[in-house]
Structure formats: structure tokens, C-alpha cells
């Protein structure tokens, strides 16, 4: 029983840590900014909304898009267009990678040590 609770607590901690790590990575990915070509929507005039954003931040999915109707130009800031979909997709993606990495970190050394131990025992 105790072992089960401890295991659950451990797993919860792992998930919590991985969620935090992936969130941080997601936010850090805002530092990755790339240019998009300005595209004027056919038949749409006299509205900034007719234009596609010229810059987007976030990787691999764009999370923050430069609002073409708001200063400053060609620069990303908090006043620009935040896309929750891109944010969550990135977060989920990084969460998966983080969990995988943590599993590998936890499992691999044990495997390696275990194989080493068996070698030592036979000698």
C-alpha cells in the first residue's frame, strides 16, 4: 500500500515536473521568430485584417503573430495576436518529448548499470 502511494506520488511529481519543463520550453520557443510573407487577401482592402501577419513567434507552431494593424511593425510584442492553439500544440509536443526524455534518463542508466553488474558477477 505504502509502496503504491509512494509510486503514485513519484509519478505525479514526474508529471508535474515535466509539465513545468515543457511549459518553460514552450515559452522559450517564443524566442524563435520567423518572417512570413505579407499576403493581401483578394478583394479585401482598407483593413489590416486583409494582411497576413509578417512575423510569427513560437516553434514549431506559431503562437504569437505580428498584428499588422498595431505598432510596432515587423516586431513581436505582447500587444500582438496570441494564438492559443499554437501554444497548446507546442506545449503538448514538448510535454511528450520531456516525458520521453525523463523516462530515458531514468531507465537507461539502470539498464546500463544492470548489464554492467551482471558482467561483474559472472567474472
Amino acid at each position, binding site marked *: 500500500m505504502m509502496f503504491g502511494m509512494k509510486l503514485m506520488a513519484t509519478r505525479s511529481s514526474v508529471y508535474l515536473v515535466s509539465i513545468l519543463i515543457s511549459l518553460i520550453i514552450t515559452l522559450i520557443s517564443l524566442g524563435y521568430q520567423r518572417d512570413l510573407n505579407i499576403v493581401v487577401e483578394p478583394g*479585401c*482592402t*482598407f*483593413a*489590416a*485584417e*486583409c*494582411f497576413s501577419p509578417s512575423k510569427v513567434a513560437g516553434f514549431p507552431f506559431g503562437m504569437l503573430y505580428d*498584428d*499588422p*494593424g*498595431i*505598432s*510596432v*511593425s*515587423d*516586431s513581436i*510584442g*505582447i*500587444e*500582438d495576436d496570441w494564438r492559443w492553439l499554437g501554444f497548446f500544440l507546442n506545449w503538448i509536443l514538448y510535454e511528450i518529448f520531456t516525458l520521453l526524455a525523463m523516462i530515458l534518463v531514468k531507465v537507461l542508466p539502470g539498464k546500463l548499470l544492470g548489464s554492467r553488474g551482471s558482467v561483474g558477477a559472472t567474472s
Partner: protein
Amino acid sequence: MIACETFWNIRRTLGTTVLNRSLRIVKQAAVTAIGGFAAVALYATAAAATETPPEEIPAEEPAEQADTEQRQIEPVEESNPSEPAAESTTNSDRVSDENQPQVDFSASVENLPSDQQTDEPSESEELDSEVTSCDADQEQSCGTETKQTPGGEAPAVTAAADGESATEEIVEIESISGEFNNQKILNRDHADTTNTVAIETDGGYYEVVLRSRDDTHQPGVHTSQTQEQWVLDLLDTNGSVIETTKATTDLSDEAIERRDEVGTYDFTGITAVRGRHVRQGTSINSIQPTSFTLKPTECIIDCETQVDVNGPSIETVLFKDERLIGVEGQQNTTSKIPVDIAPGRYEIFLVSKDSNHPDQASQPDEKWRLNGYDEAGKLVLETSPTSDLPDGKQADPSYVGGYTLTTAIASVEGQHAVLGGGPNSIEPATATFIPVDLDLLSESIEEENPIPRAEVKSSTFTVGVDGTIDDEATLAIDGVIPGLFIAGSNTALNVSEALRAGAVAATASTPQQVVTIDVTEDWNGIDRSTLKGIVFGDSDGRIDVDLALSDDAPTDGNQVYAKIRLTDGNGEFFEIKNDNPDGFFFKINPRRSAPPNADGNNDITVRASACVDLGRPRGDQCTYQERNFEVADRIDYQDECANRIADRLESGIDYFGLSKNLLHSTVCDDDDLDTSIHILIADLADPRVDPGISIDGAGTRQSSYTLRPISGHAQLFGDTVIAVNGNKWAGDQGRGSEPNDQATGPIWTTIVNGTTLFDNVNSAEVLIGFNEENNEARFFEKPQGPLPDFGEHGHDVVGSITSVVKNNECNDAANAENNYSAIGLKDERYLVMLSSSAGEKVRANRGLCPVFKALGVSDALRLDGGSATSAYTTSAGHLNELEGLDDLVFGNSRNILNAIAVRSV
């Protein structure tokens, strides 16, 4: 150039008389503040005056020859004794002063130090004897003129009485001169200072001229001597230094003697002077102070400006010789100089210098600006930058604009105006504050324009797009400026007749069908209830129901009520009961509430029932009438919202007394448009209303522009009454400290004072252009490509890639939700500015457009948005300060590039 443009603006606005007075103020500033070279430049700008550069005398020439040369140069300024002195004045002075009161000549003379029988002047007096005269028309012929006095004769100047007959009078203003012992200072065996020379003055202001020499400057001897500079200490009776003059210029190796005009100083209480080596630098050489001359300037100031210079009016700040580099991490500001500048309005002149300015090499961006701080060290003044110091000049004055100080300035500093991008260094020399004599200006305005000055008062309120007015909004009501009305005074809402007409136009509806309802419920031979009134369908597609219900048998104890039901080809879509005996009034847009009929027509049937509840077992008994309407096509909800707001505005003074539960309907509320918007309106046709675009540089193209908050733009623009943020820029985000936030410029079309700061050829744009008189504006649109021909409406132009309303049609493409400001025109005369309230996001098509339409604005464009959204009134300050995350990042007011502002003149 800036000065020229400013003078032109002043001329245009205030007329010739004021301009000429301004010119004299400029001249006074030049003389007072910056001595010879600044006076030359400013006076040349203002009134094409003469030039008196300091001369250096070649070492090869004996001193006597040098004196001769001095005399040969100075006669350029002489007035011919045989000619009336008035001819030395400009025609403009003469014309503008025709109406000035004529001053008795003798009285003028009495005002001057009139020791006409002077002793034979000493050599130095002979060189510099300044003869200043005032004739009957003081302003015309008063001036300082250098006279040669051959043979020791008293200098003579001819003065003309009444500008007609030339009456010869000999008037002399005594200059005070003194000599030092020709001793070297700051040499190995010498002290830093000369002997002290006692002087006796009448107090007041004197121009100081210093002479210095170095006999070792002979050919081949000490060919490289630097920092041979000295100052004059002004001492009181206790021997304390009260003030120190500006330093002389280093005596060049080729000269043995030099004459420097070092400025004008107050000699009140000064009883002695002495020379003192500046002792600055690493390679200091000795110098021989020769003499000093003090020239009284009282007459010049009295005659030319009518301003008492001894009063606290003109303030001049002398900077220490500090070089501003313009590169981050290096010295970009001077040390702070303590000052005492009282609140008021000032014209500010800055003088730049660069003693190492090469003649040939091009050195751009040698600009600086003046920052002023109050007692608490808070930045309260930031001027526009000076113009670039012209190549080939070592000093140059700049007029940087008029500023209104609301608090006293306790210290000032110079700051390089260009950071980064490889600017060149510059040295602030002086800053001069010239108070604008408001009484004088208002007198002039009254002379030429019978309309009195507008009072700077304003008010504001917020209105929701559903027509609700936020009673909790700031009602910063000081009063009303005729011609500049900001809807929202609780005395009359200040919706002018013209604006009201616009609102009426928006609500005007020609009833297509009007029918009467007169139905009575008759039960058992007794009239029980009656419903009377009208129902009409208007051209906007609305059905207006205005019925009154009466209880015909009040004593029977039965409840009466009315019932309205609307049906169309799809069946019943609306029914409402009302038992209010006071009336039954509502408007409804049936095509908003229901889809078009299945059969494609717009027929609506209205059934109006008069009812009575007879209780069990009879129950409700009703009698009805039906009326059919063919309503107009489905109307946009924007129009409906516009109508509703217009209704509210139109209700005027009674609005605040209206019941809160008056029909709000569902027209706007269900579109999540319950936002608040600040409305600011100006009547451009009123001569006291002066719109424009506030931007760093005031219409000069620059490599960078300082961003500032909306209140900073209000200060920069001067006398600003209302303002909203301008259009989009590139560069810094605007979240740093104000002077360091630099934009590379606007990226939507912007023309300021006739100068195109940016021509957006890459996008289709809508634009609003103002004419030079600023009394008319016009809406333009252009496809991608070059600018259209603005005609006379190209003096100030603001462009945007987003329209809000065009030809009275809302722009449905402008549906992004954010904070925005927008400006529009009604009848090319009323400038209507909207700005969403703090934290209240709005869509241009749903939120801003209905308000514009309610106000009769047919064309409007959207300005910058997000955290740049800002609105300002003079009484309430920044109306929509940032909140939440924006506040965290930008502070309560983001620095922005430009603002659309209106000032009261």
C-alpha cells in the same frame, strides 16, 4: 529652417503685428542669451540684421593697426548722421508699429544715460563706444551702433522726431571700460587672476566685451599654445564672485590679440571685476587679459520689445563645455544646470556648438534637445531637437518651439538627440527661455481678429455602443470651448446644433407606413381596456410601436394589459405583453430578430391587442387589430446601434434624467458590443481650433524619432486640448524611458507641415488630409502605389490601411478585436476622434463604426491600436491609461510615435 517655419506659422496664425513682436523677442533673446554669434544667426533669420563676428588680429600687425582695422570694419553698422535714424529700421517694423503710441522724444532721451558731454574717450572707449539712440518712435530707431569718434569728438547720432523732420541730437550711452595690468595669468610665476578693477554701474544688464593678448605669439615663438582662455568674475562689495562670464575663445597662434563678446549679464550689485584663467584642459597656456568693456543694453530691450529684461522674464542657461557623444555607454547628457523657470509659456532657443567642426567633412546628426526637471527631479519638459549643426559652422542657434510649462523647472540638461547610428558629437552652448507675453498676444489678436481667445477647457465622457453612457465616467468639465465640443457635459451634453443635426440625420427615418391602432376590449357591453396609438415602419427597416393603454373600467378590479405580436411568413417571432398604463413604446428591427420570410418578401404583420383579465372562469379576453407592413431590407446592426446612440445623444440635457430601464432592446447587447468609447469632437471651421500631428521634429524628416506618451505629445504640440494616438510606426516598442525610445518612423503615410515623413506605396490606404489653414479636412483613399493628389489638403495627412466607415458603410473586414483609436470627418468640417476605453476591446466594424455613424461621420479610419491606444484631454489628462499586463510592460502610458491633436489658439 525650423525657426523660419515657426515664424511663418506664427505669422499665419497671429498676423503681422504679433510676428514682428515675436521677431523682436527673438532678437532680444539672441542678444541677451548668446552673445554675438547667436545674435547674428537669429537676427539674420528674423530680421536680416547685421553681423559682428569676433575678429582676430594678425600677429604681424601692430596693435594700432589692428585698432584701425577694427574701425574699418565697424562702420558697416554705422548710420549716416545725415540721414534720419528711422531709416535704419526695417519697413516691416515701421508698418507694424504705425499704430503704436508715439513717445515723446525728450522723454526717450531722459530714459537713457544721457551724459552727452562726455570726457574724451579713452582708446578702448574709442574702439567700442556704443551709441544707442531712441527717436520719437522708439521701436523704429533704437539700436546699438558703433561709432568712430575721430578727434575725440563726442559721438553723434541723428534721431528723428515723429519720423519726419530730422532733429540732430547727440545722445550717448556710456560704456564702462577698464584695463588690467596686461599681466599674464596662469604662467609659471603668475597667479590665476588679474588685479581687481572697481567699476561703477547703474545696475541692469550690460553686454561684456573682453580683450586679450599674448605678446609671445610672435612668428616662430610658441607656435602651439592652447587653452589661452579667461573669464571675467563679477564681484560684489564683499569681493564675492556673484557671476562669471562665459570664457573667451582660445587665442589662436596666428594672432596676438583678440576681442570676444561673451554675453549679457546683470550687473546689479556688482562693484568690481577681475580676470581669471579658466584653467581647464591638459595643455594650458598663459594669457594676458587686456581690458573689458561693458555696454548697457537697457535701451535696446525697452525700445525693441517693451519687455523688462530685469524682470523674471527671459532666462538663459549657459552650459558648461560638455561634449555629447550620441553613443550608448558614453556621455550623452550634460550635467544638470540649476535654473528657476517659472510656469508659463515660453519660446525656447537652443544654441549648439562644436569647436572642432571641420570645414569640409560632413557631420550629420549633431543635434541635442533640452530636458527640464522639476524640484522633485521629474522630467517635465523635453524639447524638440535642435537642427543639425551646419557643416562649416562652429555654432548655430535653433528655435525648438513653444512650450507651456505647468510646473516650475528647477534644473535642465542637454541630451544628444540621436542615439546609435553613428551620430556626431555636439556641445550644448546655451538655452534661452523667452516668455510669451500672453497679454501682448491677446491684444494683438483682438486688434486683428475680434474673436477672443478660446478658453482651454474640455470635458469627456464614455458612451457604450448600445447607447448607454457611463455615469461613473470622468466628467472633467471645466467649461466649453465654442467650436470645440466634447460630448458629455452634464449641463447640456455639449452636443452642438451641428452635431445634433448629424445625430438627427442618422436617426431620420421617413415612415413608410403609419397606421393607427384604436382597439377596445368590450366585454359584456362594457368597455374594459383600450389600446391607442400608432405603429409605423421606417426606411431603416424598423417597426416603431407607440401605444397607450387605458383601463376603461378601473372600478371593476380587473387587470388590463396590451399585447403586441409580430408574425411573418415564417410564423410568429415576437410577442410582448405590457401592463404599464403609462405607455407601450418600443422599436424593433424584425429582420434582425428573424430571418427573411420563406417566401422571400418582407411582410410583417403586427397584431395589437387590448386585453382584460377577467379571472376565472372567463379568463383573458382580448380584442385585436392587425396591420401589415412591408419593412425595408434587413438593416445592419451597426446602423441600429448608431441610431440608438444618436437617440441618446439627441436626448441631450434630459439624458441623465431618463429612466435606466428605458427600452434597451436586444439590438446591440446581444452582439457583445457593450464597450465604452471616448468621443472627442472639434469644429475645424472655428478659427480657434487648430488641429495637427504631433511628432518629434515637428515635420522634419529624421533618421529617428523620439517616442513619447500621449501627454508628452500634448505638451510637444502645445496648448493641446484633445488628442488621440496616431498611426503605426517601426522601431522601439515604446516601453523604455521616454528619451531613449526611438522609432525609425511611421510606416503608414504621414505628412506633417507639408513634409512627407513616409509615403506608403506598398498598401492601399485611406487618409485624412488637412489644409494649411487647418480649417478643413478631407477623406482620401488610394490603391497600392503613389499618393493621390491631396490638393490643398496635403499640409497634414495621416494614413491608415484600415477604414472604419467609408461612404457611410461600415468596413466589415475590420473585425479584429482590440483597443483602437480612430478619427473621422463629418462634412469635412468636424473632426471626430474615438478611442476605446481602458481594457475595453472593440471591433472597428461593430464598435467604432456605429458610433461614427451616430455622429454623422461618413468616413473614418482606424489608427494604431492595442496598448498604443490613447486619448487625452487637457483637463482629464490621459483618459485610457493602460491596465493589467499592458501596464506591467509599458507602464500606464505607452510611448507612441505621433498623435492627432487639437489645440486652442
